């Protein structure tokens, strides 16, 4: 069972099935799913704070996803957070397409937390993740747009007393050509609101699309993000608001023993110091300084004197963790995939290959450090956040405050990057903000609290991509043909101890630890994939852009390259031969090698330099991506990446330019991982603290990138993550092509030792 199927079984407090609460008729979605369209008037003033505040009595709000004002403005409500991946633009494209709105009249607003109306249809809870936004919204947003359009058309037909079929709708205007009458959406909203919601609607055939698939649509978030007006959590200012900066424990699992606040309280602007405990949600047990500015809170935090109880603290270093994992990798693990008898085949093989791979902890390091704003009153908890995890965060906050989930409202703001971090399975940082707000209130501060982490806090707080070690063995016959593949994966389970463990960890296998390996696409005669999940390593871990694929693809795509070399075959031809049953893998592989000129030798290098080209192909989140990396290795062993060619098959391309941007960005994000990414522990303490010790990619390291999209009529799939996995293995394969050296751990060395 796939992750999505398992997630969809997860039943939150509101009920996992998406129930239509309309007292009128409802729309039946494709595939029998009942859509989350909610046609009753917005009934809960608290849970609809955002939507209701912007609406006026004259607006036409046919369903939960669109509101049309008398001035013609079409507001699309996005249940998915915009964290750069283009979800606001994508959801608006789908709705505006079927509404036949003019792109310029469409604006997007974050939806409130309300799983009844805004659940992710693939998860059953309101959340953004797993590159799922477009896949789950594909029919829902189109049908919402089509329903609104039908009601506007009915209103025009009624007003002009003519049959609906004689009306045309284009770019926000309804026309009756015969009588030369026309009306903009805004003129019809009052009448449209009185029309019955259609029992069923028809959506367009792809040939009739005016917006979907078009290159000339500009992003809906560009303007605000280029003039400073876009609002992130960091920018929230509320009357009387206090800024909270925390003194965090030096090691995971440490607790506050005692603290002396006197020096902190002497800092001008500091108004209070409170201890808080969010450890139940894997947040910190720590001390927060409350002040009237961020600067004052920082100064106060630096002046604090805190002693820590480290009796339960985690004290291992990365080297010790790796040594333990290496021992585990020598033992059989829990089988995640068994085809044939790989073990015996390898023992009998004429030739074998053994390899070990090590992948460090990785921080997300989004540009906006974690933060969250909370305002409490006896019956209400209001949260402002770059909210990626509505239902879980709402439930966590409600439990902490002794409220019901519908007494917790969330205003979804732009997230300054996420890469998985803002969807924490235990709601760690939201729980910290609520804990601080509760502690502040207990100390008499009736004020909203903005919790802000420093960059150092963000890097030290854990919730990293787990450290993994893989051990692989291949068996070949005497002619070098691949017979068997055995792969052992060792690493912490992201889901262990979370609410997701019971549904997403099956028979001892956390699907997110083995995805990309246990479902190896290549037709290998015998395949065995095993997993070790150590539970005594208590570093907080979390999904990180592309999750398991961030390490499994490196192993599978460099290992298949090694197998090709043993067989004496071209890396592309060898892959194609094992992908006979995988047409979409072959499709991206063919497109990328054609566009990269794989069959034409690389332009030769300058004297003393060597050039290389490597390829990788990988499916993740139902999207297929192949990349070719071209590089030059200098005489001193340093190398530069010259060009990356990328082919992507994500089904029908809704916003081609957003898809290209996500591939470009995914390649840069993956390059940062491949070249620099490593969080290391020493005696339990994180050794990195800012961008000097945890470098990410800078512009001078960014290669030329070319992205090509496979034309497709398949259902759309996501693009936020799938650009990441193929890059590092393609890069390592290119280094092999240039130098003959196999590199099996990340990050790669800055320079190779050349003979």
């Amino acid at each position: 069972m796939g992750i999505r199927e398992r997630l969809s079984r997860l039943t939150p407090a509101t009920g996992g099935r998406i129930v239509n609460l309309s007292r009128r008729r409802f729309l039946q979605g494709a595939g029998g799913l009942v859509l989350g369209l909610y046609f009753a008037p917005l009934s809960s003033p608290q849970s609809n704070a955002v939507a209701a505040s912007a609406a006026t009595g004259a607006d036409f709000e046919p369903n939960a996803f669109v509101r049309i004002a008398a001035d013609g403005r079409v507001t699309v409500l996005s249940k998915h957070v915009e964290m750069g991946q283009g979800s606001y633009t994508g959801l608006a494209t789908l709705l505006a397409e079927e509404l036949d709105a003019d792109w310029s009249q469409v604006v997007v607003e974050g939806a409130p937390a309300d799983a009844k109306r805004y659940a992710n249809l693939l998860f059953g809870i309101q959340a953004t993740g797993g590159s799922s936004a477009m896949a789950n919204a594909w029919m829902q947003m189109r049908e919402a747009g089509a329903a609104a359009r039908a009601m506007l058309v009915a209103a025009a037909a009624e007003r002009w007393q003519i049959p609906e079929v004689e009306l045309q709708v284009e770019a926000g205007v309804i026309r009756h050509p015969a009588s030369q009458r026309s009306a903009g959406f805004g003129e019809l909203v009052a009448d449209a609101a009185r029309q019955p919601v259609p029992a069923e609607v028809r959506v367009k055939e792809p040939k009739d699309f005016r917006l979907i698939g078009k290159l000339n649509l500009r992003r809906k978030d560009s303007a605000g993000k280029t003039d400073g007006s876009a609002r992130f959590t960091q920018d929230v200012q509320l009357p009387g608001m206090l800024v909270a900066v925390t003194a965090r424990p030096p090691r995971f699992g440490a607790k506050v023993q005692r603290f002396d606040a006197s020096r902190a309280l002497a800092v001008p602007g500091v108004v209070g110091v409170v201890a808080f405990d969010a450890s139940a949600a894997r947040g910190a047990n720590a001390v927060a300084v409350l002040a009237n500015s961020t600067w004052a809170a920082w100064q106060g935090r630096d002046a604090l004197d805190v002693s820590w109880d480290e009796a339960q603290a985690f004290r291992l270093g990365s080297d010790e963790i790796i040594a333990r994992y290496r021992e585990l990798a020598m033992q059989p693990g829990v089988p995640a995939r068994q085809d044939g008898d790989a073990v015996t085949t390898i023992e009998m093989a004429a030739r074998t290959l053994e390899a070990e791979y090590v992948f460090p902890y990785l921080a997300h390091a989004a540009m906006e450090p974690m933060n969250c704003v909370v305002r409490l009153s006896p019956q209400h908890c209001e949260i402002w956040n770059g909210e990626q995890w509505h239902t879980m965060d709402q439930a966590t906050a409600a439990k902490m405050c002794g409220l019901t989930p519908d007494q917790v409202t969330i205003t979804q703001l732009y997230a300054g990057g996420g890469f998985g971090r803002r969807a924490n399975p235990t709601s760690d940082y939201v729980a910290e903000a609520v804990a601080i707000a509760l502690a502040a209130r207990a100390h008499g501060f009736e004020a909203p609290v903005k919790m802000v982490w420093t960059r150092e806090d963000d890097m030290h707080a854990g919730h990293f991509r787990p450290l993994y070690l893989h051990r692989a063995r291949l068996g070949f016959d005497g002619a070098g043909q691949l017979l068997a593949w055995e792969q052992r994966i060792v690493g912490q389970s992201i889901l262990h101890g979370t609410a997701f463990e019971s549904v997403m960890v099956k028979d001892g296998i956390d699907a997110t630890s083995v995805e990309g390996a246990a479902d190896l696409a290549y037709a290998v005669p015998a395949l065995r994939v095993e997993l070790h999940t150590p539970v005594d390593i208590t570093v907080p871990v979390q999904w990180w852009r592309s999750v398991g694929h961030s390490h499994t693809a490196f192993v599978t795509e460099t290992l298949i390259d090694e197998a090709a070399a043993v067989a004496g075959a071209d890396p592309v031809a060898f892959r194609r031969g094992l992908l006979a049953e995988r047409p979409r893998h072959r499709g991206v592989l063919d497109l990328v090698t054609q566009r990269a000129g794989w069959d034409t030798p690389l332009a030769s290098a300058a004297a003393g330099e060597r050039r290389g080209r490597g390829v990788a192909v990988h499916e993740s989140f139902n999207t297929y991506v192949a990349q070719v990396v071209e590089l030059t290795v200098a005489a001193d062993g340093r190398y530069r990446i010259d060009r990356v060619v990328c082919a992507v098959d994500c089904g029908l391309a809704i916003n081609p330019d957003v898809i290209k941007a996500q591939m470009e960005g995914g390649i840069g994000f993956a390059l940062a991982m491949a070249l620099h990414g490593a969080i290391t522990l020493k005696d339990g303490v994180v050794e990195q603290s800012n961008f000097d010790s945890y470098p990410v990619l800078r512009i001078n390291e960014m290669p030329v990138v070319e992205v090509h999209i496979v034309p497709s009529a398949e259902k759309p799939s996501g693009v936020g993550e799938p650009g990441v996995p193929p890059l590092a293995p393609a890069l390592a394969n290119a280094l092999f092509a240039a130098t003959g050296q196999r590199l099996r751990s990340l990050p790669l060395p800055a320079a190779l030792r050349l003979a």
Partner: protein
Amino acid sequence: MLTLNINGQPHMLDVPAEMPLLWALRDVIGLTGTKYGCGKALCGACTVHIDGQPVRACVTPVGSVGDKPVTTIEGVGSERAGRAVQTAWRELDVVQCGYCQSGQIMAASALLSINPAPSDADIDAAMAGNICRCATYVRIRAAIHAAASALA
């Protein structure tokens, strides 16, 4: 009490002279377009112009600014280079999460003020102090070239 000249407007502030300009702008004056990313001049998210020069506001004590004009992302659109850069950014849809882009635009417009036709190498050299975790770098390069063409 000190007076800052920001985007052509005087602002009187009662803050310690050692408070970084970033926090004076964000928390005291309410100009939140300038972002905090690292606090140590490592990421460029807080880039503003002081006297036309790109500066990291997170390590610039507010007391050191004096009466020199400060331009932030909220005001750079009233300058020719800044307006061209913002326009190119929108036409090429450079932004993703957008958090670093105020700083990118301030750095890019400062570059074009001194070098109206930068090469890729010039762009990389001038922009390497500005991190974009979404890695929008391909489009940043393209947009700077587009803005340079528009200004030529």
